[in-house]
């Protein structure tokens, strides 16, 4: 399930809901992205999405990951609007029969969300606001998965 919302993310409640009632699942991997203070340089992130397009694109990515890693279930919750330091900006959980698949799928989906999903983020700090673009590492991380499918 994909949720984009300006409501606060509760990673624990999401994880427990995701784990509930799974007799065939051995492995649940999760990733929680928190807003860092960057040593005092950041106070909050501001997240913008291309509404409609983002849900469709992320759903496609989740379906592709489910097929590729043989997942039993995927949950992606992404925050929109202003997110303060220490709050969760993204939560991803993947369920699989075995642990490697669940962990790799989280890794893959986070790489996707970091540089290929239609989000834009601004960092607000004491010195003003600036847009954050994907780093070279983010772009290289996402390309790893392209290479593996060829």
């Amino acid at each position, binding site marked *: 399930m994909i949720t984009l919302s300006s409501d606060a993310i509760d990673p624990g409640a999401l994880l427990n809901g995701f784990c509930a009632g799974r007799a065939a699942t051995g492995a649940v991997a999760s990733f929680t*992205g928190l807003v860092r203070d960057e040593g005092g340089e950041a106070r909050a992130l501001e*997240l*913008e*999405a*291309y509404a*409609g*397009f983002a849900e*469709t694109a992320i759903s496609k990515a989740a379906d592709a990951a489910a097929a590729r890693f043989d997942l039993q279930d995927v949950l992606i919750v*992404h925050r929109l609007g202003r997110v303060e330091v220490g709050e969760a*900006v*993204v939560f991803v959980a993947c369920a699989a029969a075995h642990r490697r698949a669940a962990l790799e799928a989280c890794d893959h989906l*986070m790489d996707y*969300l*970091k*540089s*290929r*999903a*239609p*989000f*834009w*983020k*601004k960092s607000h700090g004491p010195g003003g606001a600036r*847009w*954050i*673009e*994907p780093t070279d590492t*983010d772009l290289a991380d996402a390309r790893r998965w392209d290479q593996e499918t060829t």
Partner: protein
Amino acid sequence: MAKVLLFGRLADVAGWRERELVLPPSLTSLRDRLAGEDPALGAALSGPGVQAAVDQVLTRGDAALAGVSEVAFLPPMSGG
């Protein structure tokens, strides 16, 4: 009439996020028209990594806009 959407720093540069326009025949002519009205936006639109989505489909190069209801310009994406 169709919607033209700007995201991220493109919206900051232009001072608008959404406009209703009668679209010109092609994506290239739309870029040219926006650049003619606002050279700073024109420069931002031709910056590295800026993509266009035509009716929510990412589009490389030029594209015909006949019958299209939404064109979005997307700077480099970064979530999470």
